[in-house]
């Protein structure tokens, strides 16, 4: 464990060395940013002292409003006010229609298949709306911490698919944030609890947010958090509880089912308030216009029973996938505002046979955990005692094969990072191209799975059917993002893509948005680019310097060392000036000359880990 740091609040013991990094919980209804201060992870407040930022964005002709005031305008300005945008991330227009008619927006098509929301500022993609929320949090953090951020850990529901993850990462990029890692929300919560209680053993994290539900089963061993299985539903959350109450009002009050957007919004506000009141009260008076009635907790419990049952079924499946029995789960942690509903707590407690833990505020626990991990990733902890999070992919990844079937290449709950290859062959004589269709999901028919991407491997030399050997390699990185490469083994013809989800933004759209955001920002574009080049150079210099201090003596001979020192010197000289392209060029050069050193260091870490173990064995 880290030593206790003695410092006054807000006063860092080593002001020049600490690298500022934050954890951001980008939620369906609420968002938060947290950071480690004086060794303690805590959410950061805005000027008015509020920690929670409602995930609401209202577009005016000349400005953008984010948070509580935007949320309050939802009923009066429904077309320009976007709520629960997370539900649209990584989704296509057809998916969005399935979410129900409750969405009041006017959708327009874009260059990609993404649904754009028509506002007074023109069409806005869910990624841009999310970026607008992130920008506010970034600014809040920079003001509270007093400096530029090295990076951020952004949390995502564990059950998010590749398209939803990619969309989240794009949003962060658009908001000018360097993403240190996309971290699964339940894993982040486990970090907050695990550290707090120094826990060991198997824990279940039940995370019911505004719009998403996750269940993760983890094994905690000496600072290693190993996710055994995860499951969930990216379209289940407290919003659905509100909708249930709202439909009850509609039928009880005899309202027409065809409601205009502003009525829908105010009904949902009434419903949400009733739901919250029922956390403490046994019954609540509900009024809408002239109509009024009493909603008892019992009646509300009955309205949400089927949704709750869905979540419990996912829990049982995750436990089975983890290869354990329910009784082996030693602690259950509640995360997400919707776990305040008493019926939810009771039902989860009954399933696992133990009282769920609620000590850490369920709205804040994810951001708190993310901030702890952000601090580690930014390199502020180098004592060999860092946490290690071993996460999994939530949904199987595979390829389309003959007959419209999905062939799994990586099954769900496989630990990431992972790389796996599968060989295919041609089915026609002289076939010169092969379509690679990448899918995600558990079902057999491709029509029941999510299509992530399609690409074509061309230039296969003419051969008889079945003679070509095409190796398709899947690689999932630590963010849970997939890239796919295909290669014909005889000819070496290669084709690879970073999977750009079918429902993601096209490169053209991203370029336009980045350009727009530069224009919105008052600072000069050139200055900004230069600043980015300088930051990249600084990062590399620091990394190399650190590596040299740790292992330079051991792993480099005098000549190699001299080359690296010279290139570093050169880069430092250039950093004094403002020649951006030269800095970029020299950064690349330094990176190249340190390649071999980097490889050696990594190999030696593996050896060191082995050596460390041998010592232990001798002790026995």
């Amino acid at each position, binding site marked *: 464990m880290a030593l206790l740091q003695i410092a006054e609040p807000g006063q860092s013991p080593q002001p020049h060395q600490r*690298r500022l990094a934050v954890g951001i919980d980008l939620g369906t209804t609420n968002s938060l940013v947290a950071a480690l201060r004086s060794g303690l992870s805590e959410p950061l407040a805005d000027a008015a002292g509020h920690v929670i930022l409602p995930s609401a964005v209202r577009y005016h002709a000349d400005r953008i409003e984010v948070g509580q005031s935007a949320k309050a305008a939802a009923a009066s300005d429904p077309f320009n006010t976007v709520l629960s945008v997370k539900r649209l991330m990584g989704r296509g227009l057809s998916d969005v229609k399935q979410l129900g008619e409750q969405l009041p927006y006017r959708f327009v098509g874009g260059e990609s298949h993404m649904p754009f929301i028509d506002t007074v500022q023109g069409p806005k993609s869910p990624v841009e709306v999310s970026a607008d929320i992130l920008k506010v949090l970034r600014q809040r953090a920079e003001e509270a911490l007093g400096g530029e951020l*090295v*990076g951020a850990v952004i949390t995502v529901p564990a059950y998010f698919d590749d398209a939803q993850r990619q969309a989240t990462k794009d949003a962060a990029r658009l908001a000018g944030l360097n993403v*240190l*890692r996309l971290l699964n929300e339940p894993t982040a919560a486990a970090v907050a609890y695990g550290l707090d209680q120094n826990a060991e053993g198997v824990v279940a994290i039940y995370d019911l947010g505004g719009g998403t539900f996750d269940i993760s089963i983890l094994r905690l*061993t*000496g600072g*290693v958090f*190993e996710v055994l299985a995860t499951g969930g539903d990216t379209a289940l959350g407290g919003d659905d509880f509100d909708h249930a109450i709202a439909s009850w009002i509609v039928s009880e009050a005899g309202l027409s089912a065809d409601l205009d957007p502003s009525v829908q919004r105010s009904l949902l506000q009434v419903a949400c308030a009733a739901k919250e009141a029922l956390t403490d009260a046994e019954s609540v008076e509900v009024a809408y216009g002239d109509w009024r009635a009493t909603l008892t907790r019992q009646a509300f419990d009955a309205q949400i029973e089927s949704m709750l049952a869905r979540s419990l*079924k996912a829990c*049982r*499946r995750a436990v*089975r*996938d983890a290869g354990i029995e329910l009784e082996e789960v030693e602690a259950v942690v509640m995360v997400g505002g919707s776990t305040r509903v008493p019926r939810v707590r009771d039902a989860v407690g009954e399933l696992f046979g133990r009282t769920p833990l609620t000590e850490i505020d369920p709205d804040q626990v994810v951001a708190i955990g993310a901030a702890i*991990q952000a601090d*580690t*990733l*930014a*390199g502020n902890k180098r004592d060999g005692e*860092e946490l*290690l*999070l*071993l996460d999994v992919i939530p949904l199987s990844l595979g390829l389309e094969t003959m007959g419209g079937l999905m062939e799994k290449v990586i099954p769900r709950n*496989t*630990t*990431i*990072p*992972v*790389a*796996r290859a599968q060989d295919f062959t041609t089915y026609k004589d002289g076939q010169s191209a092969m379509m690679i269709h990448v899918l995600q999901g558990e079902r057999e028919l491709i029509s029941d799975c999510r299509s992530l991407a399609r690409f074509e491997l061309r230039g296969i030399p003419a051969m008889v059917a079945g003679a070509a050997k095409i190796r398709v390699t899947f*690689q999932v*990185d*630590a963010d849970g993002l997939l890239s796919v490469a295909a290669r014909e083994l005889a000819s070496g013809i290669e084709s690879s893509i970073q999977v750009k989800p079918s429902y993601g933004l096209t490169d053209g759209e991203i370029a336009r948005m980045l350009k727009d955001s530069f224009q919105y920002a008052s600072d000069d574009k050139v200055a900004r680019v230069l600043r980015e080049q300088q930051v990249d150079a600084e*990062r*590399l210099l*620091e*990394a*190399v310097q650190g*590596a040299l201090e740790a292992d330079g003596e051991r792993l480099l001979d005098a000549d190699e060392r001299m080359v690296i020192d010279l290139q570093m010197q050169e880069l430092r000289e250039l950093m004094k000036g403002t020649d951006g392209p030269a800095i970029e060029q020299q950064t690349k050069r330094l*990176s190249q000359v*340190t*390649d071999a050193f*980097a*490889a050696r*260091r*990594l190999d030696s*870490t*593996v050896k*060191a*880990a*082995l050596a*460390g*173990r*041998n010592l232990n064995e001798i002790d026995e």
Partner: protein
Amino acid sequence: MGTPCHFALFELKPSFRVDLDQLATRYRELARGVHPDRFADASEREQRLALEHSASLNDAYQTLKNAPKRARYLLAMGGNEVALEVTVHDPEFLLQQMQWREELEDLQDEADLAGVEVFKRRLKVAQEELNESFAACWDDAAQREQAERLMRRMQFLDKLSYEVRQLEERLDD
């Protein structure tokens, strides 16, 4: 990629009998060294190497952890790649396979959860017996054919236990 032997990576002697707790402990130690999280602020090249190293470490761990995969790996180590799909001549086991499957179908038709529990326990006993038999013969060249047969039986039971999980899911409504 010229991957080193999985057993060597964990500094174990090639053997079918593996202490799974010990394997898990060593896996965590190694993962600490190479996980991309350790290199979040390092150069792009280092990050890519960490990704590759971690992925192959995870692959090695998954292979050694799972009995049928470990068995297949051991048999392939001598350079004798074992074909994935072959027509197996194992009439005795074929008969048993059909019996298992029929039973599973009956359990599904009757939605018999208690029956599924009993089935799972029997399956587990059968798996343990197979493991024992394999452990006794895999490194004897004279019994190579028998070892391959046992490995295929292990694979079948592994698949069957996956089907049991799927059945449990269907019955859980």
